[in-house]
């Protein structure tokens, strides 16, 4: 069990009302991880949702068999492992602690059970997750547009430019 004040430090939970945070607080755990601890492994099932309180986590993928590419750093207040909200989803990246980290964790199995029991909790948490994805998508879309503006010849190499827009 953790305090709801700790959960209020997490961006994804920004709009979640206190009575729902109390439910999460009863289920959540506070964990401390050492430098280089691998929290998630690419292609493996994600069964924990992580909310980072302290430290920094690198998000990486294999670029070639010899080279890893770090494409994001997760800082305190951010969360990862949203795939745990959905049954059977696997990790699309590996997450490794860059320094000692403190994270609040929730079991994916328990989150999915809570979502079935409590649609209000499911709605608020998924709304927070969608907002987080949208913010990242917008940053990426602007970066790509800026790059294409400066290097128009690169457009021919972008095969999924339509995917810059959230069109379903």
């Amino acid at each position: 069990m953790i305090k709801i004040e700790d959960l209020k430090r997490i961006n994804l939970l920004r709009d979640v009302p206190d009575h729902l945070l109390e439910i999460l607080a009863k289920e959540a755990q506070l964990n401390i991880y050492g430098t280089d601890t691998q929290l998630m492994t690419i292609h493996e099932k994600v069964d924990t949702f992580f909310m980072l309180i302290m430290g920094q986590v690198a998000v990486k993928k294999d670029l070639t068999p010899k080279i890893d590419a770090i494409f994001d750093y997760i800082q305190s207040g951010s969360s990862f492992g949203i795939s745990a909200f959905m049954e059977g989803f696997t990790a699309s990246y590996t997450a490794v602690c860059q320094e000692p980290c403190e994270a609040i964790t929730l079991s994916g199995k328990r989150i999915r059970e809570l979502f079935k029991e409590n649609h209000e909790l499911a709605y608020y948490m998924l709304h927070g997750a969608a907002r987080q994805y949208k913010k990242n998508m917008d940053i990426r879309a602007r970066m790509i547009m800026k790059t294409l503006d400066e290097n128009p010849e690169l457009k021919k190499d972008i095969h999924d430019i339509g995917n810059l827009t959230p069109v379903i």
Partner: protein
Amino acid sequence: MVEKEYLKKIGFLKDLPDRILEKIGAISQLETFDEDSLLFRQNQEKALLYMLVSGKVFLNSRSGSGKSLTLDEVTPGRTFGVSALLGGHTSTFTAVCAETSTMITVSGEQMRRLFLENFETGHAVMLKVVELFKSRMEMHTSQFLQSLANHPEIRES
């Protein structure tokens, strides 16, 4: 009001149960727009969710230097303006009808009100939004890394 049979033709909604489609249908409209109609502009806050029934819509983006780029051509059955469901987000593109187009529109504000009145609907719709955004982010990351891996300096290493 829009009948659920129309909503079932939209990919984003087709798997939702009838009771949820009826609630969404009750606050939706079926509208026809002429060719060249401007639906919304880049950097404007998105007010409506659009589901294309017939016709075609271009999504364009203008860069800092003023160059315009067509990002996508929306075809029937597809949905755009999804961030209207989240509130407070401005659009990263401009939407213009490429031909006379019929679409189902629904106010983002009314949808958000519906979600708060009926959390089952909010849960079902927001789960679909998260799945979509997640797959888009992953596709981009993969393509970006693929481009990097093909860079001559990386290939030689």
